């Protein structure tokens, strides 16, 4: 490498020194190094996220063990149809995101923008359905702390077996965890969509179709991660013990 940086020069000159790769940040030696560093950083960040959700999953496991009947009945209150639709929506959004990454790789600007927009729309649909589910919980008085009533569990209107009062009260723990887990997941979706909006604008300007697509790739990782969290949440909250 003959064009070493003259460090005494202000930073913007350094960029010019690397005219062959304008997206190479001044402190990296090679594009390869920059790429590896960013994706390594992203994976580490996802590890952090795993620990973040890990705390919630631990709580879920413990309480599920203690208050099994309450958790069974609680999960019966969730709409398996909406949950399945949402799962499908999220998997589709992962697909559109992957296609976005692929388009960036192929340097197709318009396709990239299109796929990213599709991802945003699917993310929006997911959040819409989630909001509808939350609304339903509110109407049924299943929001612990704010408006909770054990009525549905002690005197069920449908074919559900009635829970004794003490166990019925434990459904609050189930719904607390339901809201904490899906709420944190939804928050990640909202953050993801906000970032996507920025990415779309930048992609429209051609920022990721000139060979430098680490940002898109890393965002793709994040999006898939959020997707995977849902893939765990869906069976744990909606599906397990459905037959009982």
């Amino acid at each position, binding site marked *: 490498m003959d064009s070493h940086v003259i460090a005494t020069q202000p930073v913007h000159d350094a960029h010019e020194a690397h005219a062959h790769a304008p997206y190479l940040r001044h402190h990296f030696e090679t594009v390869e190094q920059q790429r590896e560093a960013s994706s390594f950083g992203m994976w580490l960040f996802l590890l952090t996220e795993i620990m973040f959700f890990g705390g919630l999953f631990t709580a879920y496991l413990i309480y599920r063990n203690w*208050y099994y009947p309450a958790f069974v009945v609680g999960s019966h209150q969730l709409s398996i149809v909406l949950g399945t639709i949402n799962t499908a929506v999220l998997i589709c959004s992962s697909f559109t995101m992957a296609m976005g990454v692929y388009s960036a790789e192929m340097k197709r600007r318009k396709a990239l923008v299109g796929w990213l927009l599709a991802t945003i729309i699917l993310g929006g649909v997911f959040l819409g359905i989630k909001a509808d589910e939350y609304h339903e919980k509110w109407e049924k008085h299943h929001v612990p702390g704010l408006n909770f009533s054990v009525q549905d569990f002690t005197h069920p209107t449908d074919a559900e077996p009635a829970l*004794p009062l*003490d166990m019925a009260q434990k459904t609050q723990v189930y719904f607390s965890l339901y809201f904490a887990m899906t709420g944190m997941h939804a928050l990640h979706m909202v953050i993801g969509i906000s970032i996507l909006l920025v990415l779309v604008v930048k992609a429209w300007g051609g920022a990721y179709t000139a060979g430098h697509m680490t940002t898109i790739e890393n965002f793709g990782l994040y999006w898939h991660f959020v997707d995977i969290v849902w893939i765990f949440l869906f069976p744990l909250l909606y599906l397990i013990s459905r037959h009982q």
Partner: protein
Amino acid sequence: MHFISPVLWQFLVNWLTHFALFPPEASEIAPYTDSLYFFLVLISLVGMTVVVLLVVLFSVMYRKERNPEPTQIEGSTLLEATWTIIPLALFMVTFVWGALLYFRIYNPPTNAMNIYIVGKQWMWKAEHPGGQHEINALHIPVNRAVQLTMISQDVFHSFSIPAFRVKREVIPGRYSTVWFKATQIGTYHLFCTQYCGTLHSQMIGQIVVMTPDDYEKWTNGSTSGASLAQNGERLFASLGCSSCHSGNADSHGPSLAQAYGGKVQLANGSFATVDDAFLRDSILNPTMHQIAGYSPIMPTYQGQVSEEGLIDLVEYIKNLNSNYRVQQTLTTSTVQSTTPAAPAAGQGMVKQ
């Protein structure tokens, strides 16, 4: 001397009269704790001396003026292994010793007398089986094993008696226990050591250790008239417990006579020991302690009985040797329920 400064003088007097390195050793366990402490202080002193000696010695011997040219040394596996293994060995001794002590402190002997403690912001309530109630004080006889069954009404507290070297967290929603055998007559500090809010530092009290005779006198002099079990009996009747737990063959609930201390099979197939915690939990969360062979019809009494009430009930069930009196109360309470005398029976209920 005191013309120099009265404050300083007072300080010195204070120092000389109050200076102590150890709290009094007033329980059977205290000397054991102290000997482990001495051992630990000793290895700390030795470790400290070795480190300081090495540092001072090398600093003097190899200071630049004396040793201008350093000799580079890579390391020494042998030496490093030495100072890995020796501390490790010492720490293992500490671990085993500490573990033995821990089990000694937290495993009560079977003949211990039981006193109940309820912690709340910011006071300690002690409930003796004989019905004596105390606040921020605990009277106990000397040379007798005492077990405390403790629970908190609100937040975490911690029951600490430095002179006995015992301490245990007092937790909302579950019983914790601690035991000790006082060996010295006297009055000792009782502290709440877990931060519990505004008046945490005033959640203190006295442990009064008395001779058996004095204790006897104190017990007789401060009884409230009814023992915990008697209070429990009233509560048992007024809550209607006796209608199901009557001990009759056709009753809806299991017989409680002589149930305490035994093992029962639960509906989910596992076995549980009937202890204080089990009884308390069964009253509050009956579904989670469903006994095999009975249907889950017992309602929860959560929010209806105070912690003191629960203690009364537990103490009652503990001492229930036959169902004779249960059936008696069953008949009387049916009779009484039509008479105005009924509220008197419910006296012990809902103290909150």
